[in-house]
């Protein structure tokens, strides 16, 4: 069990390569097996950290600082667990989604079972591109690089993980080879590489200053010099670009909305969290002593603007997937409100810092499940109705009751309404804001919830609206897809009913060790 941390990276990698090598319909089987195994291993890793505390593994037996180590504390386990669960849901959905998609794209379904299914020139000279076969290797690669990111304990290794994540994400975005997706993918690629470069320059500067790359050693070094501050700034900007914090979000809406539904879900729910994870890891462990109140407040302010601008943009959108993508911009803003709350404002020994930290992460968890569910729901509607125009959804609630129920539940979680995981996150962050006397964040957190209600309600009320037009019969949607949409939404609800254990998991190996005892009483 203690090796679950290795296998959780290797299995998706191996399965991804195998799926690529085999291709065709078998790619799906291999991908699915990989998803199932990775899910189980993620669960095992969470269990291991839960029972035996922080897990550390020296790769190849070389000790730091020369070697590279993997490390899973509560935070890593928390996010790997989320990725495992959301990833499994997305995978099961994707099986049916791409089956459907590939069938629709195959021009003349050949009765001959041995007909070539892989990419390549068809017999008639027309190229038949089946996104489904390429999806699985890339998706496994994406999953593996996420796990690399969550487990690496070495800032250069983290850079490699980030790059892998970007490559896999962009390749997935352009899976359907539509022009809009290619433009969006290209923009995303350029923005993400720019972010990586800024991060890499930061790594070089830190190494120049500290001479080590290991996160633990860097945290012990308590760096404060100018080089560290410049490095911190570069890394932060690079990661903010990848996490799409306003105003560096420009690439996100197009990229997330033009991808196929399972990809959009993974990007919004998981990939954004990867950059966010790395940022707070660095912020609260490496640059803890270098941070200043004004910088923290500024990042928080950008988060606040993101909430307002993202929500208003979401309300304005005419297409459902774009609306959900803008919602991600807003929700990312929420995550960054955590920085000033958990930062150095006021009493450094105050328990509210830890509360905000857990609150922000719980919000990330809730957003992971809820947003995945929303994008998958949009995917169902898109393939059933042939469009995702918000103002033409009238009457579809009675045809897709479970989809809209899930959308509503996920929306509740985004709004932070109880009972939902989003509520737990919001509750903790609000508490922290009130306790520390930072009232301006209270206002933005509360107003943000109402703005979220705005765009969720638009969709739901459109769907409930009595149908006046005659509609063509919707394209049938496989049941499994609907089930997965619901399962993910239900998770975002259930995690709000019993948050005690996940919150306890976060405490394992967390920064703020001295503050945690104060929260207990």
């Amino acid at each position, binding site marked *: 069990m203690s090796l679950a941390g290795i296998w959780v990276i290797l299995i998706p990698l191996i399965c991804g390569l195998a799926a690529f090598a085999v291709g065709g319909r078998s790619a799906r089987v291999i991908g699915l097996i990989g998803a199932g195994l990775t899910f189980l291993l993620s669960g095992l890793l969470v269990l291991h950290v839960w029972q035996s505390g922080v897990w550390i593994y020296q790769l190849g037996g070389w000790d730091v600082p020369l070697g590279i180590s993997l490390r899973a504390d509560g935070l890593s386990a928390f996010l790997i667990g989320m990725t495992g669960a959301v990833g499994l849901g997305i995978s099961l959905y994707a099986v049916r989604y791409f089956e459907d998609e590939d069938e629709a794209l195959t021009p003349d379904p050949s009765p001959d079972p041995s007909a070539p299914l892989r990419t390549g020139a068809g017999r008639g000279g027309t190229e038949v591109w089946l996104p489904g076969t390429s999806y699985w290797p890339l998706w496994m690669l994406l999953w593996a690089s996420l796990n690399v990111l969550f487990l690496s304990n070495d800032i250069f290794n983290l850079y490699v993980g980030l790059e892998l994540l970007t490559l896999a994400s962009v390749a997935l975005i352009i899976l359907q080879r539509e022009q809009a997706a290619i433009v969006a993918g290209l923009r995303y690629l350029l923005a993400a590489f720019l972010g990586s470069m800024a991060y890499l320059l930061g790594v070089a500067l830190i190494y120049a200053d500290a001479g080590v790359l290991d996160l633990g050693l860097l945290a012990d070094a308590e760096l404060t010099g100018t080089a560290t501050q410049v490095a911190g700034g570069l890394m932060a900007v690079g990661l903010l670009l990848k996490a799409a914090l306003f105003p560096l979000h420009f690439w996100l809406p197009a990229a997330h909305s033009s991808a196929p539904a399972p990809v959009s879900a993974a990007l919004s729910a998981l990939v954004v969290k990867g950059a966010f994870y790395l940022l707070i890891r660095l912020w609260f462990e490496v640059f803890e002593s270098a941070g200043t109140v004004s910088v923290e407040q500024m990042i928080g302010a950008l988060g606040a603007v993101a909430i307002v601008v993202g929500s208003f943009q979401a309300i304005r959108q005419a297409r459902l997937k774009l609306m959900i993508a803008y919602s991600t911009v807003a929700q990312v803003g929420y995550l960054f409100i955590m920085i000033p709350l958990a930062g150095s404002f006021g009493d450094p020994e105050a328990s509210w810092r830890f509360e905000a930290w857990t609150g922000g992460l719980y919000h990330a968890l809730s957003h992971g499940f809820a947003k995945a569910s929303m994008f998958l729901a949009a995917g169902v509607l898109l393939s059933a109705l042939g469009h995702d125009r918000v103002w033409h959804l009238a*009457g579809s*609630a*009675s045809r897709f*009751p*479970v989809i809209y*129920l899930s959308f*509503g539940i996920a929306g*509740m979680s985004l*709004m932070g*309404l*109880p*009972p939902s995981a989003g*509520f*737990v996150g919001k*509750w*903790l962050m*609000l*508490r922290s804001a*009130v*306790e520390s006397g930072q009232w301006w964040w*209270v206002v933005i957190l*509360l107003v943000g*919830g*109402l703005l979220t*209600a705005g765009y969720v*309600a638009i969709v*739901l*009320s459109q769907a*409930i*609206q*009595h*149908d006046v037009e005659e509609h063509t019969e919707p394209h049938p949607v496989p049941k499994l897809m609907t089930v997965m949409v619901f399962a993910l939404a239900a998770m975002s609800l259930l995690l709000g*009913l*019993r*948050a*005690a254990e996940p*919150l*306890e998991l976060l405490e394992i190996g967390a920064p703020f060790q001295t503050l945690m005892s104060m*929260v*207990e*009483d």
Partner: protein
Amino acid sequence: MDWGFWLPQIMLFSSLIPALVIFLLRDEQFWLRTSLNLGGSAVKLVLAGIMAWGVLAEGRTYEASLPFLHNQELVLRVEPLSLMLVGLSSVLWFITTIYAIGYLENSPNRTRFFGFFSLCVTATIGIALAGNLITFLIFYEMLSVVTYPLVVHRGTPAALAAGRTYLLYTLGGGVLLLLGIIWLQVLAGPVSFEPGGTIDFLLDDHRTELTVIFGLLIAGLGVKAAIVPLHRWLPEAMIAPAPVSALLHAVAVVKAGAYGIVRVVYDVYGLELSNQLNVLLPLALFAGFTIIYGSVRALGEFDLKRRLAYSTVSQVSYIALGTALLGPAATVGATVHLIHQGIMKITLFFCAGVFAEARHIHDIREMSGVGRSMPLTMSAFTLGAFGMIGVPPLAGFVSKWYLGIGSLESNAPWVIVILVASSVMNAAYFLPIVYKGWFGEPHEEIDVVEAERFQVAEAPWSLLGPALATAGISLLAGLLAAWAYSPLSLAEIVANQRMISP
């Protein structure tokens, strides 16, 4: 098996599980859905009976604590005050379910309707059983969300507009409540509901904060309790189908707000502290103004349901008013009105729904002579209306009597003026309806064919029965007020618990 731990949870699940199963059914699966609905509500009714017996006769409390956050638990507790709302919602859910089955037969989207209907009751039961502030908040917000699909059920532009208003108000109120609760918890730690309140120790250091928090909490709750100026959503929400309006007005939404006010004043702040903070007089004034305002507006409405809606605005504030008066008798009056207003108002809404369904009567002016063809319905309506006016020996009289005594006890004779004025206006907007219904000339415009089709003249029993049942209950609640298990006796127990404080 520890029944004290499990009973409150089974109470929630008895409507939650049917709700979830119903969502999976198709519209045509009538019998399965109906038996789930009725089975769930029957179980709930039996459980409520068992718990009432346990609490009242054997002096037990049922309590379940479930871990939620680090230092915060979800608490479900059954004691006399929670029993009042539990009893009210179990009984009325059962009756309303029967009514709704009859009312919505053959209309589209029944699955969605009954699913959310059951969720709505689950949330109400949760509110009733909540043993601390955070549990209350969770179910309170859940109620806001699950009633939205019921309000917009018909999907017409008018319904959607009403839904928007409803969401805006309730979510806004929820935000205020959330802020108040968080602020209070930051000062006091987890706050549970105890008669007499638990936060007195904050008075010396945090006087201003406590006052502001009280304002936030009451404003948040006041939205659902439809206290002026936060009442606007209620008449709008009249667009919903009759069973929803009935439930919204009698049991679920407005009652949740009023019940919350009772909880905050008696069990969070406590009378002592509320008194020292001088926050009760403003509350009483707002409530008093709402009573008058609601009545005046009701006079001006000719749509039957809208008139009833403004009547609700007015009547629910009796609860807040009685709560704010501090005295023992006023407390009895306020808490007993939780139940009395519920059974009387639901009767009126049932009848309004019957008129609308069977005769397409929506306007009061169309009601002439309707009592001749529908004597039973009209009788039920009359009982409800007389109860609202406060005619002895009906339930409404009992409430008003205790509120009146309470106002004298608390040296607030102006409240008597409000009560009298309101009763006069109650009479002014109900009596013409009753008179017209019984003695007016039947309207000529009534579709003859329509009248012939209803040879038996009355509506089907699934609609009529519930109306008669609740009318009967409101008569009995008044007649048997002295019985040991009547709402009044329960209210007296509740009041006694809260008056012991030195």
